[in-house]
């Protein structure tokens, strides 16, 4: 048996422990051991962004991060955005603005947009396009994704803090 390392981190608010080989990629740990199949594999070379998750306040392409690098980390995936049965404004806006088609890029795209709105609650279209440039979509042409992020930003701004 290959040597394994015990890694503990917080995933969508819950403590998890996994025993992994040093070479195991975070996307495989999430999908195959922790059954979080929202983040997808599109390239395994960190170009497409389908595997995007949020680790310690940064968007990370989980196909190019080792799970052993995640000791003690706080992690958010698409599965953690819905709270108490209420969709996040971004999830709702992607639906209402037709910001998705095949759905394969959607979890990474929404997770990246979530990070954007944490950093910049009122982004311009140019800023949105720049921030999402690491997340590829083959279906929508991005136009409705941009609209969805704008709509979510407006909705969040209107909510009491």
């Amino acid at each position, binding site marked *: 048996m290959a040597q394994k390392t015990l890694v503990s981190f917080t995933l969508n608010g819950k403590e998890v422990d996994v025993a992994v080989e040093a070479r195991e990629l975070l996307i495989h740990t999430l999908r195959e051991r922790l059954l979080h199949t929202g983040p997808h594999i599109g390239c395994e070379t960190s170009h497409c962004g389908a595997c995007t998750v949020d680790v310690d306040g940064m968007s990370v392409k989980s196909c190019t991060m080792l799970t052993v690098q995640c000791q003690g980390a706080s992690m958010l995936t698409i599965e953690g955005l819905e709270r108490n049965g209420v969709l996040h404004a971004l999830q709702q806006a992607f*639906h209402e603005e037709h910001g998705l088609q095949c759905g394969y890029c959607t979890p990474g795209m929404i997770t990246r947009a979530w990070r954007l709105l944490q950093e910049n609650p009122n982004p311009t279209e140019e800023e949105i396009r720049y921030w999402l440039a690491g997340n590829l979509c083959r279906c929508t042409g991005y136009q409705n994704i941009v609209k969805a992020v704008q709509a979510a930003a407006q909705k969040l701004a209107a909510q009491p803090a």
Partner: protein
Amino acid sequence: MGDMSELQQREDALQGMGTSLLRKEDARFIRGQGSYVDDIKLPGMLFGALVRSPYAHARIRGIDKSKALASPGVVAVLTADDLKPVKLHWMPTLGGDVQAVLADKKVCFQLQEVAMVLASDRYAAADGAALVEVDYEELPAIVDPKKSMDADAPTIREDIAEKKDVGHGPRTHPNHIFTWEAGDKAAADSAFDNAPVTVREEILNPRVHPCPLETCGCVASFNKATGYLTVYMTTQAPHLVRTVLAMLSGIAESKIRVVGGDIGGGFGNKVPVYPGYVVAIVASIVTGVPVKWIESRIDNISTTGFARDYHGVGELAADADGRIKGLRFTALADHGAFNSHVSASKFPAGLFSICTGSYAIPNAYCRVDAVFTNKAPGGVAYRCSLRVTEAVYLIERMIDVLAQKLGIDKAEIRRRNFVAKEQFPYTTSMGWTLDSGDYAPALEKVLKAVDYEGLRREQADKRARGELMGIGIATFTEIVGAGPTKACDILGIGLFDSCEIRVHPTGGVIARLGTMSQGQGHATTYAQIIATELGLPASDIVVEEGDTDKAPYGAGTWGSRSTPVSGAATAKAARKIKEKARQIAAHLLEVGEGDLDWEVDRFRVRGNPEAGKTMKEICMAAHTGNLPDGMEQGLNAVAYYDPPNLTYPFGAYVCVVDIDKHTGEVKVRRFYALDDCGTRINPMIIEGQIHGGLTEAFAVTMGQQVPFDENGNHLGNSLMDYFLPTAVETPHWETDHTVTPSPHHPLGAKGVAESPHVGGIPCISNAVIDAFAHLGVTHMDMPHTAYRVWQQCHALGIDRH
């Protein structure tokens, strides 16, 4: 009649055809709860990794599995020799040829499948694949299709070297696949001999790849006890695949279940049956446990489902006013090492003969010569019907070349050649009958919207200052919705499609279809058709596709055929149910069927506004004993639809580009797309499809190409090199529409998702080339990357300060 506002309320409650109903399928995707093939995990499942050839052309002298078999977690290594006993080392292709499932004695393209390593997980499988030792003897490779049929060219396919034909007529060289022609050559030649003006241009549609965000893959699960084979796979055509698997494996088709699940984009890439699927299936049959195979991105771009690679020559003959009198288009088609082109049996070059476009061209002839090279096979239709982008690119480019030669405006030359509204249905000189069209008003609407005259004035000013600005026009006609079974079949199966509708007692509906959504929103669109036809709310209508145990047989989703074919089947099935519902209503109301009028969601008795039965009441009644004499219970129907003709959506597009002559960088300043897809079912979904298709057109025109060196090595097969536009490069799209219903479709609908790709490519390319038109440039091959455009600037000497 009911009160109008009340009628409107009832109509709105249905959310039927014409409304922008939000998509039913979104709920799972926005939560990360889609079920794609790599999400499937079965007990005891093994993972298969393919060993691939580093050479484009080589003989295999031997394969040593011993080190791989000793690697931790490795269960088995399969090679062609292991597949031979079950006769699955070769498989038939959709192009009438055969293809090696695992390389049999030689490899014919780089990264060809040589062996599969089965292991407990994907890491162990990858370790094992790296340890399989293959002894190769490298052979000279043919990369340039123009050299394929040289007298001294090496024979790529020794397995069929002696065959006089491979399904499509006589071969003239061991590397020749077929020569296919259409139209009237003598008439076209005569038109050229007598024409005052002729133009000729060599035009390449480069080798590209559809590159959906999800790669191809499957989970094959053979149950030795029952003899049942279940395959979860990325397929746009699950029923056709099931038939192919039955033919290949000898397993009764009733014991094979293919499940599409959620598909992460297809764009043509997921139509064929690839070696990886077949090996995984054999591996499951051999091992008796489920086997998963998932492509890497590099494997995807390198080996499954390329598109185009048509090396064309376009010629037009015209009178002095630019009225086209003759057309001759030829193409040398690089099919790679096996003829795996997706094509209907009678159309080895697909629908290439649609190349007369939107124009009344009295004499036309086209020919396609297909050859083998040492490149991957595939030949799919990348977001278009088979070979239609190639055809439309040629005609839309050539009409610009003609305009330039004659000094006629590029909008005006199109007006002069359009098939006129009153000529429809119009049979082209190639034999296609265009169902409906109204081209001139569509073009005028777009020209007005963009202030075309103003743009041309601006361009003239900029040219005077030495700046580069281009205006591209495309007025294309697509051909979609294959197709009439009398003309179109694949492996002998006609390209009809199907819909089964079951209406439950309380008015809930489940519909199952032979198509397969890959993001097109079928669950929403089909529900809207049924809602309008049956007067039951779309919210209570569930649509299922992709599970061959559940859905009726159909040819799947490709070539924009879902709405034209399955959409029609849906309407037909719904109308059968409505007819039965009318009989039940007449029985319950004790009137004749002829005394009933349909009103949104109910039958009313004519002349007695109080008397009527809602569809919901009829749904319940259909499940009671109170029915007309002899009528069976239930409210179900299935319809198989064989379209009488294909459908011909069209559009008028304008693109404006600004080009930096020092860097070659092209900026799409404006893109205005008017599409006419006949009756519009869900405008929101249509617009989304157009955005996506235009973006893929932008990708092809501005950057996509699968390049090779002279030895057949890939030079760009990862997303580092292969261009997928990001949100930053992608232009803003403006959309518009006209509505010219198809006269033969039950709903008047035509199909839409491929038009923006087919029309967008020539439009953007025409804009780039138009920027150089005043400098005598008549054509530049795609992709129009900054470097290539700069090369044009440099050749003209305009890149210097």
